[in-house]
C-alpha cells in the first residue's frame, strides 16, 4: 500500500488535489503579461526569477464561471510533465487549502460523465473523512500531464483562424 501527499486547492466549492511532489512553490497574485493566440485558459506569462512561465487559469481550464482575483487568489507553481518535455507553469486557483495523505486504495477512478464533462484532467477521486468534525469531503485529483499539452495549445494558436476582419478593427474613418 503506498501513500502519497496531495496539496489541495479550491475552485468555488470544489476541492482539488495535486501530487505535492510536483509543487514548486505558492506565489501570491502578481501582474501577468497577456500573450496572443493562445487558448483562453492561458492567462499569460510571468517572470519567475528570470524564467518566463505560463499561467493557467484553472477556472477557465475547467470551464467554470470566472471570478476576479482577490486576497486569497494564489498561483501554484508546478512542474508539469508533458508528453514532450517538463514545463514549469503556474496555476491560478481561488485558494490553497490543505495537505492530505491519501492511500492509493482510497482513490477511485472518475466515473464516466459521458461527453458532457471531459475527464481527461481528472486522475481520480478520493473521499476523506475529517476526524474532528464528522464530515466527509471529496477531493478531485488533477491529472497534470494533460493541463498544458502541446497538442491542445497548438490547436488554438493557429493564427489564420483568429484573424479579425479588417472592418471591425479601426472604427475611425479613413480618408477617402
Amino acid at each position, binding site marked *: 500500500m503506498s501513500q502519497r501527499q496531495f496539496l489541495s486547492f479550491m475552485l468555488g466549492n470544489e476541492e482539488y488535489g495535486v501530487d505535492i511532489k510536483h509543487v514548486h512553490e505558492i506565489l501570491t497574485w502578481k501582474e501577468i*503579461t497577456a500573450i496572443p*493566440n493562445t487558448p483562453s485558459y492561458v492567462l499569460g506569462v510571468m517572470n519567475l526569477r528570470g524564467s*518566463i512561465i505560463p499561467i493557467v487559469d484553472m477556472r477557465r481550464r475547467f470551464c467554470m464561471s470566472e471570478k476576479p482575483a482577490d486576497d486569497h487568489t494564489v498561483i501554484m507553481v508546478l512542474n508539469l510533465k508533458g508528453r514532450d518535455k517538463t514545463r514549469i507553469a503556474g496555476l491560478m486557483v481561488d485558494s490553497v487549502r490543505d495537505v492530505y495523505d491519501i492511500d492509493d486504495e482510497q482513490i477511485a477512478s472518475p466515473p464516466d460523465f459521458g461527453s458532457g464533462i471531459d475527464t481527461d484532467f481528472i486522475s481520480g477521486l478520493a473521499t476523506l473523512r475529517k476526524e474532528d468534525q464528522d464530515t466527509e469531503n471529496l477531493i478531485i485529483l488533477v491529472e497534470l500531464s494533460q493541463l498544458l499539452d502541446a497538442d491542445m*495549445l497548438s490547436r488554438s494558436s493557429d493564427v489564420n483562424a*483568429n484573424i*479579425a476582419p479588417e472592418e471591425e478593427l479601426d472604427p*475611425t*474613418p479613413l480618408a477617402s
Partner: protein
Amino acid sequence: MSGEFDEYLPEFLEETLQGISDFEQMVIDTDPQAGAPDLDLVNGMFRIAHSLKGNALMLGLENIGNLSHEMESLLHSLRDKPQLFDSGIVDCLLHCMDVLRSMCADISQGVDPALDQPDALMVRDELANQIARLEGKGSGEGAHVEGGGKENLSPIKNLTTELLLSDLINNNEAQEQPFWRISFRPRENARFTSVADPLKLAMQMSRWRLSSVQVLAVDQLPFLDQMNPQQCYLGWEFQIIDSVSRSDLDNLLIPWYEMGEISIQELQKSPAGHNELSGDTRVGDINAEKEDTTSLVGNKALASNGGVADSVRVDISKIDELINLTGEVLIQHSMLARTVMNLPQTDDVDLEKLHEQIDALGTQMREMQENVMFVRMLPVRHVFNRLPRMVRDLSRKLGKKVKLQMTGQETELDKSVLEGILDPLIHLVRNAIDHGIESPQKRVAQGKPETGTLAVSAWQQGGRIVIEVCDDGKGIEQEVVVQRARSQGLLVGGDDLDAEQIYQFLFIPGFSTAKNVTDVSGRGVGLDVAARNIRGMGGVIDVTSTKGRGTQLQLKLPLTLAVTDGLLVRIGRQQFVVALTSILESVHINSQKIQSIAGMGRVIHFREAYIPVVDLRRIFHYHDAKSLKLDREENPSVPHLLLVLEAENLQLAIPVDELVGQQQIVIKNMELNYNAIPGIGGATILSDGKVALILDVIALGWLFRTLVSHRAIKVA
C-alpha cells in the same frame, strides 16, 4: 547501459567528441601524397585512440573500447611501416571516426552502441585489411581482428579480461626517460569490487604513455592450497613517460589510497616545475590523507602558476542560471533605487551618499552581467574544425584540388550563435567548392594555380562578428543568373539591375545556376536556407564576386543572441520590444496620409514607397479585446504614430501608441516552459520585473504575407 558510471557519461562524451575532432584534424594533416606520415601525428593519433580505449573500457563501453583498440593496432603497425601509408589508411581512419561519432550519438540517447551494425562491421573489415596489409599478410578477407600481430584478440568480446598489461605499454622508441614511478600495493584485506578493480587502475594509468608496467611480487606468496581467492597478493609498478602534473596524478590516485599503499616517485623534474621532494610514500590511513590535502592544495597553486591549462567545463544551464540571477539582481537594484529616490529628506539620513552608493552598485552589477554573458562565448574554432574534413571529402569527390586556409579561429561567439552558423557555413563552403572552384584542368587553362584556395576567416567588427568564405574560383556570372531568373519566371523585364540585386536571386528558394545537379549542391536548396538561418539570427549575408577571380561571402552576425538593443513600445495595454536593427523609422502621420486599398488593407505613402499598415490585431488575437486598442480609437485627436519596420525585403508599418524607450534587453525563451507563438520572438523582463514580449519582425512580415494571400484568394 553500464549504469554505475552513468554520471561520467556526459564528460566522457564531450571528451570523446573533442578527441574525434582532434584525431580527424591529425588524419587530414597527414598528406598521403607526401609519402610517410609525420611520426608526431601518428603518435598523437595513437595517444587519442589509446586514451579513448582506456576511458571507454573504464565506463564499460566495450564496443568503443574495442574499436579504438583496433585503431590503435593499425596505428601501431603504421609506426613500424610508415612507408606503406596511403590514402586507403586515411579513409579507413576517417570512417572509424564516423562510426565512433554515431556510437557517441547512440550513447547520448541511452542506447548501447552495437559493433555489429553494418557501418561498424564494414569499418572493422577495413581496419583488419589495412592491418593485414601493413603486417604483410595480404588481404585478410572478413577476418575481423586477426591482423593484430602479436595481439591476437579474437573473440573480441573478451578484450577487457584478456587485456594484457604489456598492451598498455607505449612503444618507447625514443628511449624517453620516465617522469614518474608509481607503485601500488593493495592492503591485505582490500576488497576489490568492480568499481575498484586493479585492472581499472591500470586502464586509468594508460591515459598517459607508460614505459613499463611491472608486477611486484609480495615477500611471500602462499602455497596454492593456502591462497585466499579474495585476497590480492600482488602489487604493480607503473612508469609514466609523460610529464604529468602531480595534481593530475593525485586526482587519479585518490580513490586508490584506501585500497593499499601507493608510492609516487618523481624521476625527473618536469618542465611544469614541481618543487616537491621526490619519493614520498603514503599509506592509506587517515593521517596520511590529511597530509595529502595540504600537498594537494600546494600543487594546485603551483599548477596555476606553471602554465598548465586552467579551465573548467561547466554545464551551459548553470551559466544560464547565473545570467538569470544577475538579471534578477539588476531588477532588484532598480526597484531599490526607485524606493530610495522617493525617500523624504531627513536629517539623520545622508541621501546624497545613499544615491551615490546605489549608483556605484548598479555600475558594478552591470559589469558583472556583461562578464557573465562572456562566459557563454566560445571560439569559432569549434565550428571551423568541422571544415577540413568536409573540404577534403568534397574536393576528392568532385575531382578538384582545394587548399583550405582558416584564420581567426579564436574569435569568440555566443554558444547559440555558434550553433546557428554551423549549417549555413557548411552550405557556403560546399557551394564554394562545387560552384566556385574549377576543376584543375580548367584552372590551369586559365592560368590559375592548379589548386584552388578557399579562405575561411572570422573577425570581430564593432559589435558584430564577420565570417568570410572566400574562394578564387570562377566567380558568379551575372548574365547566367539573370538568364536563369528570367527562365524561372522570377524576373520580368528590368535590365538595369545592379550586382547586389542580381545576387539576391541566389538566395531565392529553388534557384540554382548549376547545370548539373550533384548530390553536393545544385538543387537550389542550400543558399536560401543558409540565408534564412543567418537572417533569423539577426545577421546578414553580403556577396561580392568578380567573374573569373572568385566569390566572397560575408556573414555578419550579432555577438550574442541573448542580448540585443530594443525599443520598448506601447500598443494599447500591451508593451512590446522591437529589435532596433529592424526599425527603419517612427513617424507621426495624419489620417489623410493613410490610404485604403481595395479591401486589401491600408497603406501609407512614405519616402517614395507604399508601405502596408498592419494592425497587430490582425495577427495577434487577445482574449481581452481591449488589449491592443489604440488610444486614438478613444480619442481621435491623437495623431497616428507608426513604426516602420523592415522584415527581410518587405516593409511594414505598425500603429503604436507610445515609444517608451530604448534599452538593452536580455532575450528569454518562451518555448522553455510554453510554446512558440508565431510573430513573437521571445520575451524579456523589464526593469520593474514585468514581462514584455519581443516582436519577431521577420515572422510578422511572413504572417502578413500569408494573411494577404489568404484574403486575395477569398476575394478571387
